[in-house]
């Protein structure tokens, strides 16, 4: 019995070792990748890089200004579309969980979450690019907005569901009409959770390339016309990384570094905000 226990104990310890090994091993690729991007990217990033458009083939220098502006504009437009729609739908789902509409739209949110980004891109192409006759930033934003929606909706819904029912009751018993209860009590109390969902969805879409391939397309020029093609950070990285020119590779490294920093900072800020602004129930 005792020898057997010893053996079993050893097995348990070995098992833990294996688990720990595999669990921490995964940090290696991430660290390697991050360090490589940082190393390659930092070399290329400077003020000139951030304020100029890419140079033509053969010329050195140039920068990613068109992609920076483009990403900013398109993400902003996507957010303007997706945030109100997503919050409203999330509020509806959390307030009326038993209706048929809630069931079907909840199902659609789940479906949307699983749709590959390239498929979203194709569909928006047929909805907007073809009728308009041109690639455009607005079509890219719409594709991005569609991708943002499930995240915003689910986090809004889940945050609000966690709020106690007594909160609503207290407000209603004071004679506050329903829409004000939602706007002035429920949403403010869930603010931290909703905001973090929004920020996470933005962090997700600034790195998305596939939906932009056939919508915003890309452009070597710095433009703010939303009905024309527009460059974006991830798309620039894709185009220049797969090109045969070293100069363009350097641009892509620099852009990757910038993109990575944005994503990291957004994630960190989200965590800080959620902690700080969480309403103590």
């Amino acid at each position, binding site marked *: 019995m005792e020898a057997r226990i010893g053996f079993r104990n050893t097995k348990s310890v070995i098992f833990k070792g294996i688990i*720990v090994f595999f669990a921490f091993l*995964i*940090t290696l690729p*991430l660290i390697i990748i991050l360090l490589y991007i940082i190393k390659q990217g930092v070399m290329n990033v400077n003020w000139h890089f951030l304020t100029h458009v890419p140079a033509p083939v053969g010329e050195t220098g140039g920068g990613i200004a068109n992609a920076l502006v483009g990403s900013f504009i398109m993400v902003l437009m996507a957010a303007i579309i997706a945030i109100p729609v997503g919050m409203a739908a999330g509020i509806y789902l959390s307030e009326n969980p038993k209706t048929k509409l809630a069931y079907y739209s909840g199902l659609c949110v789940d479906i949307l979450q699983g749709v590959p980004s*390239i*498929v979203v891109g194709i569909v928006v192409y047929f909805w907007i690019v073809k009728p308009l006759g041109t690639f455009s930033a607005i079509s890219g934003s719409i594709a991005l907005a569609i991708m943002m929606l499930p995240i915003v909706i689910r986090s809004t819904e889940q945050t609000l569901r966690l709020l106690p029912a007594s909160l609503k009751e207290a407000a209603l018993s004071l004679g506050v009409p329903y829409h004000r209860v939602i706007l002035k009590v429920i949403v403010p109390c869930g603010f931290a959770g909703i905001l973090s969902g929004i920020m996470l969805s933005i962090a997700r879409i600034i790195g998305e*390339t596939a939906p932009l391939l056939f919508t915003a397309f890309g452009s070597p020029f710095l433009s703010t016309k939303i009905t024309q093609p527009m460059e974006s950070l991830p798309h620039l990285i894709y185009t220049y990384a797969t090109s045969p020119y070293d100069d363009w590779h350097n641009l892509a490294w620099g852009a*990757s570094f910038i993109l990575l920093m944005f994503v990291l900072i957004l994630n960190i800020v989200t965590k800080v905000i959620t902690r700080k602004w969480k309403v103590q129930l």
Partner: protein
Amino acid sequence: MIAMSVLLVLIILGVLATLIVESMPSIKSLGIGFLWGKVWDPVSNVYGAYPFLVGTLLTSFIALIISIPFSYAIAIYLGEYNPKGWLSDLLKNTVELIAAVPSIIYGFWGLFVLVPIIRTFEMKIGVAPYGIGVFTSSLILAVMIIPYAASLGITLIRMVPSPLKEGAYALGATRFEVIRSVIMPYTRSGLFAGVLLSLGRALGETMAVTMLIGNTSAVANTLKDAIFGPGNTMASVIANEFTEADHTQYLSALIELGLVLFFVTVVINLIGKRIITRFTND
């Protein structure tokens, strides 16, 4: 608010409708044989989805197989061995970071760093040293999908009721035995759902795969060639050839691929989600 929820339903229906309508020409002319047609030759107007089905399945499943031990290890470690504390938070944040890195960056890094390494590896094991190919894409894909099964697993394992575990300990079980005989059976269906979600993610991944897979639409002769040689997935062929599709047949064949991709990913994701809701409601 009701309007917004209705909008959601309309969006999904619209997506489906567009995909179906635009792939109609191809569906009509090629029929169901599209799915097992082995030749994809736009020049001669011959379209078969088989190479891409193979490519998609190979990359996704290889990625899944590679990633599962890691996902489970992370889930068990953070769910059972070390659920709280600074080290646990650090690891959890790292895993979340893996999911946060945009796929294009994975692809870019893979292209310049992983491919040469794989090339050397392939030379060592006596395969044609492409560097790019199904295997390389699967490797990167594996890293990318680890967080999906892992986060779900962590939540599920933490949900195992203490009384259940304590009962086993009280009978003299070791930690490993409690994990194996109590935690694993309890979370089995949920963990399976996590695997499905990871799979769903892998199936739909486009950019990293497109950059690393070699973009060849021919079917390989042997399994070894299929894995270590270049290929294409449904997503990557769409990404590469969509803007070059100059006639309706070509375009609608690509859209039909998109339709297939849509169905496969949606079904897998929904099954995964259904399992999870059933699990959390019990």
